[in-house]
């Protein structure tokens, strides 16, 4: 672990990324303490510019506090990003692992399926899924996971394929270990680093997809999110620029920080790449 941190620390922008991400997480965790009221609640006069009427970042046409929305929206973005990634990585790892280990029919089926997923416009597909399932946290998480898992499956399949014929795996076969045990205890730990890296980058993509869906009006109607704030504020562009601007900055900063962390993890976990640089 200490060794890992030493490697990670070498990438200075990755350190900056984790600090920023830490602050976003802190904001999400303390949102209900700083702004205990419902972010949908009318908090005062409407259309207040930033810094006036007691609003740090202004208020929108219904007198909702933009800063409170951003703080509560952080929870939504992180939660959906994380959940969707866990589902996608879990499912993709199982499918990719089975396909890579057993080959044959499962492998063919998986490869054709991922090829199809690479062809269909994934964002449009996500829109369709959410529209059909009705917008809610679950349907958004499912939609993002459905369009994201094929990338994980392809990666894990490749790793399993290259590891399954290595000596240490053959040794396990001679020792009489079962397939499940070999896959879970021997091969999987050896391909965790690329899975962690792709997973961390996927959180960023998931947050971007979620904000896009919410912007189009496909967010969970009961939950404040950054995309919803921007979508609701777009009609006020002429008179109240701040309603759209600040939630967008929040998305940008969060996604950027996660991408930096992902690249830092990649550098620290992938020694081959490190040597090349």
């Amino acid at each position, binding site marked *: 672990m200490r060794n890992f941190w030493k490697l990670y620390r070498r990438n200075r922008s990755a350190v900056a990324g984790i600090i920023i991400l830490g602050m976003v997480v802190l904001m999400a965790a303390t949102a209900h303490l700083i702004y205990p009221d419902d972010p949908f609640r009318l908090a005062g006069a409407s259309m207040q510019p930033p810094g006036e009427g007691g609003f740090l970042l202004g208020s929108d046409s219904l007198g909702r506090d933009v800063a409170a929305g951003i703080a509560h929206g952080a929870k939504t973005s992180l939660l959906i990003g994380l959940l969707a990634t866990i589902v996608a990585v879990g499912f993709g790892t199982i499918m990719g692992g089975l396909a890579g280990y057993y080959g044959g029919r499962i492998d063919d089926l998986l490869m054709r399926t991922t090829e199809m997923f690479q062809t269909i416009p994934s964002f449009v597909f996500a829109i369709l899924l959410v529209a*059909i399932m009705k917008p809610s946290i679950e349907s958004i998480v499912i939609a993002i996971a459905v369009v994201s898992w094929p990338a994980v499956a392809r990666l894990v399949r490749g790793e399993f394929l290259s590891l399954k014929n290595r000596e240490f795996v053959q040794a396990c076969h001679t020792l009489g270990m079962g397939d499940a045990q070999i896959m879970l205890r021997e091969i999987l730990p050896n391909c965790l680093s690329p899975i962690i890296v792709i997973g961390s980058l996927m959180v960023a993509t998931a947050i971007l997809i979620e904000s896009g869906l919410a912007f189009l009006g496909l967010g969970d109607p009961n939950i404040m999110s950054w995309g919803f704030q921007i979508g609701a504020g777009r009609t006020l562009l002429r008179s109240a620029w701040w309603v*759209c601007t600040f939630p967008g900055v929040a998305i940008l900063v969060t996604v950027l920080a996660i991408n930096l962390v992902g690249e830092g993890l990649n550098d620290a976990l992938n020694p081959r790449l490190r040597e090349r640089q």
Partner: protein
Amino acid sequence: MSHSTKRLRYVLKRLLQAVPIVFAIIIVNFFLLHMAEGDAVDVLAGEAGSATPEYMAELRKKFGLDQPLPVQLAVYLKNVLTFDLGYSFRHEMPVLDLVLDRFFPTLLLMVSTIVLAVGVGIILGLLAATGLNTWRDTLISVFALVTYATPLFWVGLMFIVVFALNLGWFPTSGMENIAAFYEGWDRVWDIAHHLVLPTITLSLFYLALYTRLMRASMLEQAGMDYVTTARAKGLTERRIMFVHVLRNALLPVVTMAGVQVGALIGGSVIVESVFAWPGLGMLAFEALFARDLNLLLGIFLLSALLVVGVNLVVDIIYSWLDPRIEVG
């Protein structure tokens, strides 16, 4: 076998490979249609206000909705293969007519976006790779990193605030000034004027992608043996970079341009709805609001088929560009 028949065989082979994908997409579409709560009859009955169960059963029979699922699937396949994408009850028009109507603006937006993103991406990647680890490289890398993390819809809105509302350089939305009744070149100029902001917005994300790809590709090629040979021949660094390396580095960027078309369609839904650009994306946004699933699925199907087509074309172009590609 002569080279041209070999090439023809390759094209045919690629065409055949696309067939199962097209079928899979149509089948996915069919099941999505079924997953949706209620069928077309429910929608019609809802529109009419009241409908007796007998009337609804009769309607179901008329549309073939009382048949078993495999039969319905077969009918759906037949319909799609004869370009019948169903009926939009909101617009009271066949989906195909609606979609074709909106196809041209989207094509215009996508082509100009690809040209801008690939063109500028190649230049930026080249600049970064030739000035490796200088301020120029750092600046371009930071730019790519930031644009990669920016939500497209937000950039679009910010562009509207700055360039349309405050500076007044460009119109805020739409494709042309209909009230002005421009004709000929005036109209072309008007559309081009409206096209600027949506194109820049949509190309930003891909610009970042192509910049990074071009930079990596240039660096990879710079380490190849033929570069050492060229250097040994006494060629100038400038000539090596711009004549020898650049050519080879372009190939992966061309392939990527094809792969990204699917993502580009997703991006155009967002950008078109921000700028009220009257294309397929805007139509999808309207369909979403009107809960017009038939239309939404038709757009999805058409855009998926578009991606299959573009990938095919890119593969064929690629085999022309790089003779090393297996065509046999």
